[in-house]
């Protein structure tokens, strides 16, 4: 269903018949315009209800997980996380112990962050090093690096993780950062 397309179709049709309007009574023409305005208002309300309802349920906050990272996909699909997405308790922020600043808001930045910390423990999952994409490019140039400390107060951020974020800026530092993180228990293996 494409509400925008339907609105455009109706407007295009109105444009076509507008020039023949002199053949009809003024009341009919005004009525048609009023109907058009009300229909557009209803379309806007329907669209807004869809978006807002989806946001409330949590669809808009789903983390997009690359297919090449099955471990992350499984983590995101875990029922407890779904429940918290549904309740909009800010899981996207609370689970991110450390993240690189992205172009999007932090709430939607699950696809570009380097580390994701499991809610239940201190282990962090190293995610998306191979798919950091264009949003990390700025960080590579050392222009936009800034860690986001958005974890809840009862969880501790390893100081090492901050260093890892700096190391991960350069391509050569990615692997070493992960090795250090893995050896110190901050990160878990990418492949089980």
């Amino acid at each position, binding site marked *: 269903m494409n509400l925008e397309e339907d609105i455009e179709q109706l407007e295009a049709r109105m444009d076509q*018949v507008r020039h023949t309007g002199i053949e009809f009574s003024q009341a009919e023409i005004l009525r048609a315009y009023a109907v058009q305005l009300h229909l557009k208002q209803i379309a806007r309300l329907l669209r807004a209800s869809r978006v807002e309802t989806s946001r409330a349920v949590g669809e808009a906050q789903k983390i997009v997980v690359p297919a090449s990272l099955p471990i992350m996909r499984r983590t995101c699909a875990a029922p407890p996380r779904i429940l918290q997405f549904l309740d909009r308790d800010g899981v996207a922020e609370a689970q991110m112990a450390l993240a690189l600043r992205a172009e999007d808001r932090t709430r939607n930045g699950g696809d570009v962050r380097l580390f994701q910390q499991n809610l239940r423990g201190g282990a962090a999952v190293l995610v998306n090093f191979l798919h950091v994409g264009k949003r990390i490019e700025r960080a590579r140039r050392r222009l936009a690096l800034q860690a986001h400390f958005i974890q809840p107060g009862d969880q501790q951020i390893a100081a090492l993780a901050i260093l890892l974020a700096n190391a991960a800026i350069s391509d050569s530092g990615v692997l070493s950062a992960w090795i250090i993180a893995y050896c110190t228990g901050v990160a878990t293996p990418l492949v089980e």
Partner: protein
Amino acid sequence: VSEVVLGIVVALAVTTLVLPDRARLRLRDGLAQEFLVLGAFFEAILQGFRGAPAENLSALREDALAMLRGNNQLLEAARNEPSGGPGWREGLNMLSQFGRSLFDALVALEFSVKDSHDDAFAQQLEPALGNWTAIFAPAFSMWPAAFTNGASMCRRT
């Protein structure tokens, strides 16, 4: 066995008395019904504009109004229930508000087409106008149905 029975009784008591969610569940279903009635109301209005007026137009309007009032009461009751979480309260609250706004818009639409009778100018707008009726009427029930399904999923998990 007695301990298991005692546990079941305590769980039932907690669910019923301490963490009730009856109003929330009824509101969820009520909102789905409300949007269905609004969709039927919308269809009847446009049917009257495009041709013969619908016979059940006033009945549908009264039904929609009654559903709105009932759901408002359920929403007030659901706010006092501790279960559900802020996300559900916000979602149900927003759906209730959208229902009221849609009803107002539909009443305005009904008022604007009140005196229409086989308008020749409106017939020039076909088939675009007919598409709206065919496409938008199901849209009224689509999002609340999705919300209801989401609620069921949440409860199962």
